[in-house]
């Protein structure tokens, strides 16, 4: 972290000392007291080291220290987090007392912006930076998990607890139909082609989030979802540092939030009543429910375990006159809380900067990593996800045989209503392999040349290699499907993916001042190319379960595009330019533009231009503000700009031929080809125009700082596969159509509540994001989600839940006769739906049926609060995050409230309607009448499936203790203990994770058109861990 003013101050202090001191001493002991400049109170825990050595100590409780100094000409370095570092030459003194001042709230910091840096004070866009140090104690594998709750305007959800997966990041509520919402990640200047879930967080120095268009427009057609700039570690000036960080933890699934299902007795009782109410004889196994007392088979619980997690990182940084370097080696190993799931990451990074001369600098970074990730098919709907299968398996089905061995397969006779058979899900979890192995290499090199003062020419070459091997194998002895008796058909999928992306960037920066006019001009040209080669083979029926190899498979499955080769390529040529100007450092103006030519855009629309302009005024520098003490900074900002989203697919513009439309004549396959899309030579990027105003305040000697932003943006030219009448032989036409408007408010507050020995700081943020669909294609006012549970409709927010509205059950014949019914299906006691279109009957299907919007997956607001307390050598922090007003679609109810007794049920279903005299709580309907009656309640998705998922999560509590000068080899050591996911306060009843979003097949979060669906996903564990940081 560079602090120009602070450095100047230290420099002048240093010069004064040299002039003042003339005495010499040898091999002496230096003692002294370190105190707080504001009130003179002693400061414990301050690191005191002899500069350039590993010789150091830490001040005691009263701020006193004592250190042996071998040479007289040494310098002592005093450092303490939150305070300005001081360097004091010894020059023969034996007592050196130091007073330390708190960091001015980092206003002089330099922050990273796209293609350069700026002094934070002069930034005119909406930018937030997080130091990785702040995140270090959170014992999770992914950076984005650590960022939860820390960033205003950024919603980060953990949509599934699968180790190493499932984070969704959305900046300022941005979304689109097909273009996703993930921001662009830029690591050391290199926009990478994927996400950052496999990046070792310990390699990171800091993370900067660019939110408004002025900050992001230099990333042009990739910037609309926001940009995340990541800087990796490098040597810190004047120090050599070796640190070893480790933490070990245990993960468990909290009891809170687990779905309350019936136990064996309750289930048998339900079944007994089912047959009684139907007037049928009760099958023998249900005649005496109490026989199952204490014999519940909790299949879900049996799949869970307590699992360890461990993290080791060794970091070596050094900085000599010529060479700055950092090496980070990491090992992260997490066993999952579901059987047979685990995640391992081995990573290495070496960063080098070399000053060839005063004018020439070169640098080289290389970061290989290897990740192995195995998670059985846990997520997804019935017959797709093992967790959901387990949840609704009958509790009277035994997990174990009387002899203690596992059952292989459970099915009761059909007259018990058990129409599906179930494998042993423990065996499924253990035997089904679902593994990815990633080898990733990220590398950058640069050459920087400063021919004349203020002019810098820089060229960089970056490459990313990503190899992924995916293997799925389900032997004859296991299945993730239901109704698939064991032994079954073995099946396998192999997928090999090789991604290669390279980027060359060439920029020229020129800084010049004319009197009070300061200019900085940037110009650049970049070229990036990406290629993916992917091969996938799906096979089945292996000769031997022990040999899941291609040559062992009887059948290669070619139907339905299961086995294929794929090539994905794109290229991007860009010109960029930025002018930064300020007058007297208080009137600020920035203008930037990027022009992108992309292979993804149609031949008639190949180039997109993305300009932005922003201005700032530091009012606190004006004369009229000089006579007050309250405000140290008052800055007003405004910006406007245009950015794009180019996630439109690589070949969408072309009319493609599907060459797998094969026919058969006689018994011979005849290859067939058919047009399967229309060409669109005008296809282009999605355009987002964003306006932002912001206010930055610092008060009371920078003890309170406050940032507010309001933004409004319009995304137009949404890439959208417009449905066309299928009489055309096609389903859709890809076009840029439609508009969404977004707006929101963001507040961030940082306060230093107490200072000195007991230092308490708070940082809090809250964000309000809104969106509304302004238009879709001509003549189309809605898009349904693929599953029909969502609607995106003009005039409403995006991706709303869609279904019938319920009004209890038909309580009696009179109620039934006087209410609209589902023809042929409604009976007394069945669910009563509201006749939305007023035609007297309840129908489902078409645009004008009785469905309506039933809920909203988006929160009213999200917030985070972090409190940190340091007291002497102790430190303590609490991170809380929350979300208010968001809802989830509890989709698993279609099985877990299936009134036909086919599956195990929610305990609540006990209170269903049984007769006119005994109507229960009027919520769940009658079981009489079979699927024709009960099917409406579960299959015609309705507002009962929608649940409030507002929550507040005490995300992390950490308590640490720092030891200084343990012995001559250690500069310091810190021990800490932390709990992750301490407790979630929520009314959400559909499952343990109020952030969940799982697709039917469990392979993703459903995208924007179908977000917020709970089909039972991998639970997010609580992690109790202890850690140790050693600095040598």
């Amino acid at each position, binding site marked *: 972290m560079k602090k120009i003013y602070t450095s100047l101050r230290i420099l002048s202090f240093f010069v004064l000392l040299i002039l003042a001191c003339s005495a010499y001493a040898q091999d002496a002991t230096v003692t002294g007291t370190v105190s707080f400049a504001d009130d003179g109170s002693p400061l414990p825990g301050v690191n005191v080291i002899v500069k350039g050595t590993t010789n150091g100590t830490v001040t005691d409780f009263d701020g006193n220290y004592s250190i042996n100094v071998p040479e007289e000409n040494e310098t002592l370095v005093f450092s303490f987090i939150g305070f300005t570092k001081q360097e004091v030459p010894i020059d023969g003194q034996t007592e050196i007392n130091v007073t330390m001042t708190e960091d001015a709230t980092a206003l002089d910091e330099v922050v990273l912006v796209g293609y350069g840096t700026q002094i934070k004070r002069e930034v005119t866009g909406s930018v937030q930076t997080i130091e990785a140090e702040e995140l270090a104690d959170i014992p999770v594998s992914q950076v984005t998990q650590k960022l939860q709750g820390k960033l205003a305007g950024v919603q980060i959800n953990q949509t599934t607890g699968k180790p190493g997966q499932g984070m969704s990041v959305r900046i300022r509520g941005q979304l689109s139909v097909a273009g996703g919402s993930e921001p662009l990640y830029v690591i050391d200047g290199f926009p990478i082609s994927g996400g950052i879930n496999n990046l070792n967080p310990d390699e990171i120095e800091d993370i900067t989030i660019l939110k408004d268009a002025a900050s992001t427009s230099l990333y042009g057609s990739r910037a609309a979802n926001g940009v995340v700039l990541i800087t990796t570690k490098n040597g810190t000036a004047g120090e050599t540092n070796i640190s070893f960080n480790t933490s070990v933890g245990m993960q468990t699934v909290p009891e809170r939030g687990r779905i309350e299902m019936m136990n064996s007795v309750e289930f048998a009782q339900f079944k007994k009543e089912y047959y009684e109410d139907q007037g049928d004889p009760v099958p023998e196994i249900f005649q005496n429910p109490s026989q199952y007392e204490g014999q519940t088979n909790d299949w879900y619980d049996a799949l869970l375990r307590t699992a360890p997690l461990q993290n080791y990182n060794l970091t070596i940084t050094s900085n000599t006159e010529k060479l700055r370097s950092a090496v980070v080696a990491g090992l992260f190993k997490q066993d999952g809380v579901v059987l047979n799931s685990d995640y391992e990451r081995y990573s290495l990074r070496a960063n080098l900067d070399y000053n060839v001369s005063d004018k020439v600098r070169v640098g080289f970074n290389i970061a290989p990593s290897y990740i192995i990730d195995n998670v059985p098919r846990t997520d997804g709907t019935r017959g797709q996800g093992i967790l959901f299968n387990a949840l609704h398996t009958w509790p009277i089905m035994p997990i174990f045989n009387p002899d203690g061995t596992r059952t292989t397969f459970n099915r009761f006779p059909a007259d018990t209503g058990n129409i599906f058979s179930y494998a042993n899900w423990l065996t499924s979890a253990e035997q089904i392999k679902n593994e990815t192995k990633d080898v990733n290499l990220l590398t950058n090199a640069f050459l920087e040349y400063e021919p004349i003062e203020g002019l810098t020419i820089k060229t960089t070459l970056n490459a990313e290699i990503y190899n992924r091997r995916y293997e799925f194998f389900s032997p004859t002895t296991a299945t993730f499907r239901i109704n698939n008796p064991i032994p079954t058909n073995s099946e396998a999928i192999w997928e090999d993916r090789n991604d290669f992306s390279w980027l060359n960037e060439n920029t020229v920066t020129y800084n010049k001042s004319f009197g009070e006019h300061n200019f900085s001009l940037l110009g650049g040209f970049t070229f990036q190319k990406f290629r993916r080669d992917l091969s996938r083979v799906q096979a089945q029926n292996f000769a031997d379960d022990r040999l899941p190899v291609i040559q062992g498979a009887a059948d290669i499955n070619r139907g339905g595009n299961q086995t294929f080769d794929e090539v994905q390529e794109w290229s991007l*040529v860009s010109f960029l330019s930025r002018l930064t100007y300020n007058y007297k450092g208080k009137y600020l103006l920035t203008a930037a533009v990027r022009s992108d030519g992309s292979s993804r855009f149609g031949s008639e629309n190949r180039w997109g231009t993305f300009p932005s302009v922003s201005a700032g005024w530091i009012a606190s520098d004006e004369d009229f503000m000089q006579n007050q003490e309250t405000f140290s900074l008052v800055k007003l900002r405004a910006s406007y700009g245009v950015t794009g989203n180019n996630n439109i697919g690589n070949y969408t513009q072309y009319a493609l031929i599907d060459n797998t439309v094969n026919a058969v004549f006689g*018994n011979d396959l005849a290859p067939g*080809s058919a047009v399967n899309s229309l060409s669109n030579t005008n296809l282009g990027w999605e355009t987002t125009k964003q306006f932002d105003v912001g206010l930055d305040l610092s008060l009371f000697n920078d003890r309170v700082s406050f940032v507010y932003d309001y933004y409004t943006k319009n995304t137009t030219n949404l890439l959208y596969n417009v449905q066309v009448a299928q009489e055309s032989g096609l389903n859709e036409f890809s076009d840029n159509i439609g508009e969404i408007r977004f707006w929101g408010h963001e507040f961030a507050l940082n306060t230093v509540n107490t200072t000195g020995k007991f230092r308490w700081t708070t940082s809090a943020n809250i964000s309000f994001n809104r969106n509304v669909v302004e238009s879709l294609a001509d003549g189309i006012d809605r898009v349904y989600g693929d599953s029909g549970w969502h609607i995106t409709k003009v005039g409403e927010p995006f991706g709303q839940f869609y279904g019938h509205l319920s009004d209890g059950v038909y309580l009696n014949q009179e109620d039934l006769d006087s209410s609209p019914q589902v023809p042929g299906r409604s009976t007394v006691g069945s669910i009563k739906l509201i006749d939305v279109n007023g035609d007297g009957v309840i129908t489902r299907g078409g645009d004008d049926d009785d469905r309506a919007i039933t809920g909203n997956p988006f929160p009213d607001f999200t917030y985070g609060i972090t409190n940190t307390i340091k007291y002497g050598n102790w430190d303590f922090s609490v991170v809380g995050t929350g979300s208010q007003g968001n809802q989830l679609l509890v989709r698993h109810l279609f099985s877990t409230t299936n009134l036909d007794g086919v599956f195990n049920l929610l305990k609540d279903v006990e209170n269903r309607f049984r007769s006119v005299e005994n109507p229960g709580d009027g919520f769940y309907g009658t079981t009489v009448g079979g699927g024709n009656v*009960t099917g409406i309640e579960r299959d015609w998705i309705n507002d009962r499936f929608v649940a409030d998922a507002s929550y507040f999560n005490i995300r992390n509590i950490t308590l640490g203790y720092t030891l200084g000068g343990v012995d001559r080899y250690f500069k310091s050591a810190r021990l800490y203990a932390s709990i992750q996911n301490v407790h979630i306060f929520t009314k959400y009843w559909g499952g343990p994770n109020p952030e969940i979003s799982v697709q039917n097949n469990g392979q993703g979060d459903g995208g924007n058109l179908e977000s917020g669906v709970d089909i039972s996903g991998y639970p997010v564990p609580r992690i109790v861990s202890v850690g140790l940081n050693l600095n040598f």
Partner: protein
Amino acid sequence: MKKIIRILAVLGVVLTSCEDELSIFPEDSLSTPTFFKTEEDFTQAINAAYVPLRLINNQSKPYLAEMHSDNTYFARNTAFGATEQQEDIADHAIPSDDGITANVHVERVYVEYYRIVARTNQILTTIDEAEFDETVKANIKGQALFLRAYSYFDLVQFFGSIPLHLTPVLGREDAALPLSNEDEIYAQIVSDAQAAIPLLPPKSQQEPGRVTSGAAQTLLANVYMVRQQWAEAETVLRAVVASNEYALMTDYADAFSGNSDNKNNMESVFEVQYKEGPEGLDGNFLYNFIPRPITAEEVGAITGTSNPQPVNGEGNNIPTPDIIEAYEDGDLREEASIQYVTISESFWQDGVYPIIKKYVEPHSLHNNHGMNWPVYRYAEVLLFLAEALEEQGQAGEALTYLEQVRTRAGLGAPSGDLGEAIFRERQVELAFENKRWFDLVRTGRAIDVITAHGARIKANPIAYYYPEGVEPRSNAFTNITERYALPASESSLNPNF
């Protein structure tokens, strides 16, 4: 500064090559500018035009054309809920407000036939510009014309007025067309079928499984039968008979394709081709026609597979007591068409159900078989000819053709009115071959026959596979019409309906 100039010069070179770098065509598939040029391209294109027939006939068309008639019904499984899509068809209870319906089978048949139309339009519009062997070209054009005519013929019979696309759709604007009336559609069908006949080779010279001049003649005759142009029908039907390309199989049971043998046999005029195996060319219609829930062993007993699985849901296209009754005593076809299976876990009576035997052929993979679906058989050509002659008052000659069919069935001369006899003969000879509903409609009997059929079911649900105490739904047989409503999903995309 020199260096800067040099860098700028390099930039200039890079820029000139920009546009090349920005044109990336997909390597893993072809696109239209390069396709539709060669004989191989058009061969692949015509092959793809046949493909939707597999999906149409695997499930949806049998429900719309057979289970919608008095020949078959569904077998209610009270433990299973989501079955209204099929039941609504069998029960003539398809919700159809304003002439549109959300029924998935209606939508599938509509969409898949238009897929054939689009593929054949693409071929017919571009093939004349391509240069390759004229014989091959004529053959491909003939097949395309047949498939387009056949698609529109089924569409017009199911729906009446429909959009008439004759050229490929190139943009969003021309995707949806106004409805054309039945006369316009039929004029196009007749014109396409007539054009196809001389272009196509006879069966003996065509690759087995592809359409032939005989198939095109039979299609044209079928159109004339529906339009009651008896004389025109007679002319083309006589040409089929005179071609000597076809004959009845000796044994009625052998008229139908095996899993991999006896396909496109000498009686076959046109069959939808399937192939067992993992290539995705298989059918599974037999499984759709089995009552449920059924155990793995019972499935295995029917299908002969080594890896049978239990099947749940609801069984469809179950022969009614009425079709069983329709077989005269001694009709050999009854035993070849219907077999009885015991479903031990059934909720209905003793669980002994009739199923369609025509499609029961031993195969090896569960839920994956290779039997072809019969579209036109020579027996139907004979019955058409008999009917066309009878309608023109030539009863004597008509009877000779009818008797050819009856003789093979082990039956003698028909009794009673000849016209009625031919109609009854069609019901049993062509049972479960997607003919019955169309016959009821074209003869104007649909409303009466189905109304009576519905009354019989309501009066005696147990006879129609309802478990004891379970009643037909209250909306059963409340919406009996001669045409299906158009799909709701398409209505929202086409402003014309």
